[in-house]
């Protein structure tokens, strides 16, 4: 019997459950290592070499090198762990969150100042809100990733 996962139909959202956690274990533990200043320096000096010290999948490594947080999450990453990559690169949490939406930094910041993303149309896959797949990416950013 499979487990009940009522959260799979929330648009633009990956719930970090036991299955995602298992998939992303080494990716997330690599992120944890960036809490030490010396590791942050080593990572910045040669990212590929640093990643190769970890038993991560090639897709996980490529996602990190592309600074593509959506791709990292699909590969099992969790945002609180991935935030260590952003911190290492000198990015704020707002920059990180915004980078997953297709919006430029200014567009995302403006959306937050005007009250944030509405829940209307964004509760269930198949509605017509801004987080739905057919409306994404929603902004004018040409950059993928942080």
């Amino acid at each position, binding site marked *: 019997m499979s487990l009940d996962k*009522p*959260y799979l139909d*929330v*648009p*633009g*959202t*990956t*719930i*970090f*459950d*036991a299955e995602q*956690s298992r998939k*992303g*274990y080494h990716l*997330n*533990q690599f*992120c*944890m290592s*960036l*809490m*030490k*200043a010396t590791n*942050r320096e080593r990572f910045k000096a040669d990212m590929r070499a640093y990643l190769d010290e970890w038993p991560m999948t090639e897709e996980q490594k490529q996602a990190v090198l592309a600074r593509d*947080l*959506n791709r990292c*999450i699909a590969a099992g990453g*969790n*945002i*609180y*762990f991935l*935030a*260590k990559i952003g*911190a*290492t690169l000198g990015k*704020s*949490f*707002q920059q*990180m*969150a*915004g980078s*997953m*939406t*297709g919006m430029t930094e200014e567009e*995302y910041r403006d*959306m*937050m*100042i005007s*009250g*944030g*993303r*509405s*829940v209307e149309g*964004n*509760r*269930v896959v198949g509605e017509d809100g801004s*987080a739905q*797949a057919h409306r*994404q*990416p*929603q902004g004018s950013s040409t950059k993928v990733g942080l």
Partner: protein
Amino acid sequence: MARITASVYTSHVPAIGAALDLGKDKEPYWQPVFKGYEFSQRWLKDNRPDVIFLIFNDHATAFSLDMIPTFAIGTAASYQPADEGWGPRPVPTVIGHPELASHIAQSVIQDDFDLTIVNRMDVDHGLTVPLSLMCGPQDPVNGAWPCPVIPFAVNVVQYPVPSGRRCYNLGRAIRKAVESYDEDLNVQIWGTGGMSHQLQGPRAGLINKVFDNNFLDRLIADPEGLAGVPHIDYVREAGSEGIELVMWLIARGAMNDKPPTVRHRFYHVPASNTAVGHLILENT
């Protein structure tokens, strides 16, 4: 006998800590946030507790994926502000209260809540931002928080997280534990995190003012009913990280059964990615 006199509820957005630490708190963007805590800082000075029992969540700081305790109580003598990747926040060391913490652990575990006991833990923004908001900026070396703090960490990072009902009932067990402590201590319980926010994926930036304000109303007047809200409602309505709000139910459950006095209520959007909510409730 120790007693819980009041509960405080507040968001713990990391950018609030950064704004304070970098001296940005007077900027127009941040002014409305800090204004919402001016009363609270006066209130805390006038109602200084002997101990703060502070419920927060660790954000992949002290607990990596190596160990994921659902409920963890700090029984250490002190806790250092953590380096979360940006370097540690320049705030004072957090002094613990090992005697009361151990007493609560003993009592609550015998009440069927299987706590993890933690004797070494760095504390992240989840714990230090509420202290900064309520106490104002403190010099990291010569300053100090107003009283000892018992950190209580709840897993809201990896699903499934504890249910609202379990959190509420845990609060009741904590109340019972505090009230069975012999020393005459004035204890405040703080529930932190939330309110609506989502930090991940194309749905990042979600805010739901209607949900948040309804949550505040019900936390005051109908906590028992609010405890029955399932996880999926938080995720759908308040964003994937809005689930942090279950931690507020622990603090609310620790209050007595009479209607509380609402000393302060504040709500503001945004602080970075998040809706800021704040309440002070006193036991009557």
